Every structure is written in C-alpha cells, then in structure tokens.
C-alpha cells in the first residue's frame, strides 16, 4: 500500500464514529477604533519603523529624500520615477545584495497590527527584491489601510504569494529581548500617501 493510502486509511479509521460537524462561531471583530490611518501610523512606529506622511504630489521628492545617496532597485510597475534606481528584471540574489535599498508599493495596510501586506504584483515586484536590500521604502496609500486582519485576508488572493511585514526584521531569541535587524531589511521606512 502506498504511504498516501495508508495514512489516509489511518486517518479514516482514527475518526470512525467521530462526527465531522463542528460549530464554527465567527471570529469576533475588534471594536471601531476611529481614525484608522492614525492608528496604522502609531502601530507601525511601535515596531520602530519610520513613517513619513505626504501628499501624492510630494511622493517623488519624499522618496528621493529618504533614499539620499543609497543605491536602489525598484519593481517594473512601481509607477514612480526614482532617480538612479535599477529596475528589477530578474536580478540575481548576489546582485541584489550589492544594492542598498528597495522601493515598493503594498497591497494593503492593517491598522490594528501595523502590518503591510505585499502580494508581489508588478508595483511590488518579486519577493526577493523587498528582502535582500537593507532598506525597504514601502509606499502605501491611506485608502489602502483596513481595520484588521480579517479585512486584509478578504482582499488578498491566495493564489499569489504574499508577504506580511510588521516592522523591520527582528528577533527575540536572546533572552527573549526584542532587537531589530537580522536577515531582512534592517530599516523599514513607510511612506504614507494622502
């Protein structure tokens, strides 16, 4: 018998006589928190990420200022001119490792948890580009901010890869003390538009 058939057989015999019906209560919703965008900013900053708010007209200059003299890579569909940046066309990991920063958009922002979710559409690019460079500049529109995790889940397409980002890379592995800066970008700079 194949391992598959044997395991499925064991599962069925383990559950013989067990009713599969389980009452599924809906997960509760957090109460209304008022100004979602303000909450989002507060919660993102709580992770020691940097947040800059700007108008759509100022976006280009704000991003340029955040980058300063850092070399950068952008996804092909960013929809913003970033002077001097390399447009990703499938760069090797080693090449990405030599670039200081990446600028991407996001799919959704979650206010309750201060989370950005990328679904790696053309304005966000491949997963590798927002991972290897040490500075991640992530542009999110105020209108993209939702209240809580279930709202984000409902918006996301599970067929796409998604990356949920809550602050810069961090670890609590030494004495359970949180320190920022391990393998992912050590600096997360969120540019909130609108």
């Amino acid at each position: 018998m194949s391992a598959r058939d044997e395991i499925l057989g064991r599962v069925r015999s383990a559950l013989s006589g067990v009713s599969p019906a389980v009452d599924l209560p809906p997960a509760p919703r957090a109460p209304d928190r008022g100004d979602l965008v303000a909450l989002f900013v507060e919660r993102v900053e709580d992770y020691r990420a940097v947040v800059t708010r700007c108008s759509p007209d100022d976006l280009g200059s704000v991003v340029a200022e955040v980058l300063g003299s850092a070399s950068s890579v952008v996804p092909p569909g960013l929809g913003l001119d970033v002077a001097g940046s390399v447009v990703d066309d499938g760069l090797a990991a080693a090449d990405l490792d030599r670039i200081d920063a990446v600028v991407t958009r996001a799919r959704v922002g979650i206010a309750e948890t201060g989370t950005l979710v990328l679904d790696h559409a053309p304005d966000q690019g491949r997963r590798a580009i927002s991972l290897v460079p040490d500075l991640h500049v992530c542009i999110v529109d105020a209108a993209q901010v939702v209240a809580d995790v279930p709202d984000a889940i409902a918006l996301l397409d599970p067929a796409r890869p998604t990356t949920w980002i809550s602050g810069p890379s961090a670890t609590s592995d030494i004495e359970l003390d949180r320190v920022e800066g391990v393998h992912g970008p050590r600096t997360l700079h969120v540019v909130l538009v609108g």
Partner: protein
Amino acid sequence: MSGTFVGMPAFPTAAREALADTQLRRNLAHATRTIRDKRAAVVAEVEDWEELRVAGAAVKEAALRDLATHLETLEASLVAAGATVHWARDAAEACAIVASVAHTHGVDEVVKVKSMATAEIGLNEALEAEGIAAWETDLAELIVQLGDDLPSHILVPAIHRNRAEVREIFRRRMGDVGRPAPDDLTDEPAMLAGAARAHLREKFLRAKVAVSGANFAVADTGTLVVVESEGNGRMCLTLPDVLVSVVGIEKVVATWSDLDPMLRLLPRSSTGERMNPYTSTWSGVTPGDGPQEVHVVLLDNGRTRALADDVGRQALRCIRCSACLNVCPVYERVGGHAYGSVYPGPIGAILNPLLNGVADEQTASLPYASSLCGACFEVCPVRIDIPSVLVDQRAAVVDSHRGDRVPKPEAVAMKAAAWTFSSAKRLARAERASGLAGRVLGRFSRTTLPGGRAAAGRLPGPAAGWTGARDLPAPPTESFREWWDRTDGGRDGSAR
C-alpha cells in the same frame, strides 16, 4: 551538529539534574518572565480574546474531524499549483524524501527555516549521514546547532542560554562552518544578531535547496504559511531554486479565511506581539518568483495515533506558540531538556505520549511532569485542555502496566486500599492504626506544617519516593466515624 534526545533519563531524574543548575534557572526565570509580561499586555488589548480563542479552536477542530477530506483537497490544490506532494508514514520515510530531493540536485548543503516537524524527525542528523549539511538559519536554532546543544523551548530553542554564553558559542564555532564572528563581538543582543546576519548571508546567497516546515496549510487553496521574525524564513522560501516543506498532517485548515483567527492568535500568544515581523504565504510555484521546484511532504509520524484518542485528539490543534511553556511552573524551573523531546513543557507532556505511546519509561514519565495547576489551559490560544489530557494519559500509563508480572508499588497500594475500603470492619481497623500513627507523629515529629499540624519527615522504604519531596501530614488521631460514635453525630454537646 546538534545533540540527540535518545537515551535521556525519565523526567524525575532529568529534572533533578536541571534544578541543580542555578545558571539555567536564572536564565529561564528571566526569559519566561519577560515573555509572560509581553503576552499578557498584548492579549489584554483584544477585548474579545476569549471569543477569538473559541473561534481558533473551532477552526482547528473542524479541520481535524474531517481530516481525510481536507488532506485530499490539500493534495489536489497543491498539485494544481505546481507542487509535488509526498506522503511520509514516519520520520525515516520523511527524511529519505528530503535527502532524495537534495541528491537529485547534487547539493551537499541545504538551508533550513526553523521547523518543529523537521526537528521531530531528526532531519539534520539524517541528512548529515547522507553527506548533506543542513544549516539552521533561525538565530536560536543556530545557537543550538553551533553549541552542539539540544533545543529546550518550542519558540526559542536556546532559551536556556544567556547573552554571554551565546557570544562564547559564536566566537568559538562560527569560523568552523563559515564566516567567523567579528573579533570585537560583544554580548549585546543587537551585535550578536548582526554576527548571525553576516555569517548566514553567504549561505542564503549560494543555497540551491531550502527546507521548511509550515505553520498552516490551507486545503482549498494549497497555500502554505510560515510565520517568523528574522527574515531567515523569507530568505529560505524565496532565494533557492528548490523548496521542500515538511508539514505535519495536523497543520491543515480548511479555507483561506480560516487563517484569520489563527494569524491573530499566534503572534500575541507566541512572541507577545500584535503581529510577528514577517509572515509568508505561497501556493505551489509562482512563475518568475521564488523557488521553481516546490515539494511538500505530508507527515504522519504518530499523528494518526493521537487522532484516534478521543480525549487526546485536541492536542493536534496545537499551533506551537509556546505560551503553555512560558506560564508553566514546572517548565520555568526545570527547563526544556528534562522533557527529553523537541516538544517540552505542558504540550510536550501530552504530545509525546500521544504521538509515541507510553511503552518506554521516559515518555511514560511525562504526564506526571505537572502539578495540574491549569495555567497552560488558560493561555492556550486554541483551548487545549492540557490538564484533562495529562490525567487521561496518566490513566493510559497505569493501564499499560495492568498485565505486569511484578506490579508497581502504587498498584499494590491501590489494591490494598480497595480491599480495606470494601469492608466496614477492615476500614475501622485501618482507622484505628492510622489514629495511633497520628498520635505518635503528633508527639515525636519535628516537622510542622503551617497551621501547626505535625507532619512526617522523610520516611524510609517504599514511601521515600513520596515523602522525599512532600510533607505527609500526620493522620488525625480520631477518624470521622469514631467522632460520630463518641458524640452521637455532634448532638451530645461534647463535639469539638
């Protein structure tokens, strides 16, 4: 390479050794207090935490109770998304599948995301025997691996090490397996994390094959989910050409929207954060992005045994958050090694016997490694009633000895008690003897309990095991029935 739990002594022996290690107790007390406070703060923020727990428990319970259907759906979704699905009855079969994928690609190393399933099956040791180095990339796993040590916590396997010890391990060992630690390495956690970043970066950039586990596997979409902090997970899941994920069959949830209560419950219960820094989800192969060859190994290794246990089945709801370890008064004092398994603490005390049975002495000792205080049940995000399962597993241990040719002293004592209690005459005789013992102890005992009642000190013989760690109160000098006879049930006025 890390050590092995094979040959560990039973819990009472291992616990005694651990308790004597004052450094270990200091490290554990500090770390568990830190994490308990953080968890309590972020859980208090959620007004309907209890309802969220109920919803999370229901999602996992529903998936378990129809597991065969969900596994078939998961397999079909994964295959449709371009993944190759393997099934492994046990640890050896799972390790062989991973080794064969690595061999196919001619690699002598793989990078690993922290994964309890691969620790459970001893994958690193199995790959080493096949000439393949498995590099742990989670910081705590790296500390354990470089220190030839054993994991002692589910979330933070190096919780028993303090910063000074970590610095020593990095300085001594990093150079043997890659980029050495910098000469000016201090014991600042930020600097230690920086050393790990520099050490592992070259391994991430060159790795062809990665191995992961999964926190959740969504049946209807074929999506795997990895919840992490450092970005080492993202590195392994994104940069290599080939990804092999070893997933216990109990990780299944039915639908994408089922992830909602889980992703709200896990980070708050685990690291005490509103959300962990990084969560990755992927469904098979994404053309042009990430690994283009994706394997998923669905692992049984005792899970169907646990599934068949009506009381113990709920343990398979576990999402490996470690909240039960951090609140456990036993774990906090003895640490994880004493449990002799990659699954320590309260959840380990039920999971190991459920997965493996109680035939060996070490596993059979685990259900007793608890005071049944119930703190673990209170914090469990999926409401596993650990104390009830512990009691049920204790019964399983007793049942497994019913046919013994030489019965255990406890069984003999219980038989004798049953014989005594089944006759009024015999019980009266026993009560008179016990009253006499009470009077003797009351006069000669040098141990007094709070409140003034005398207690027996350490008794000799078969009672030593009990009295060695506990005070046995002196029996009352008069039994209830004697008091009733003497006072006519308290009606004659001489009651006291």
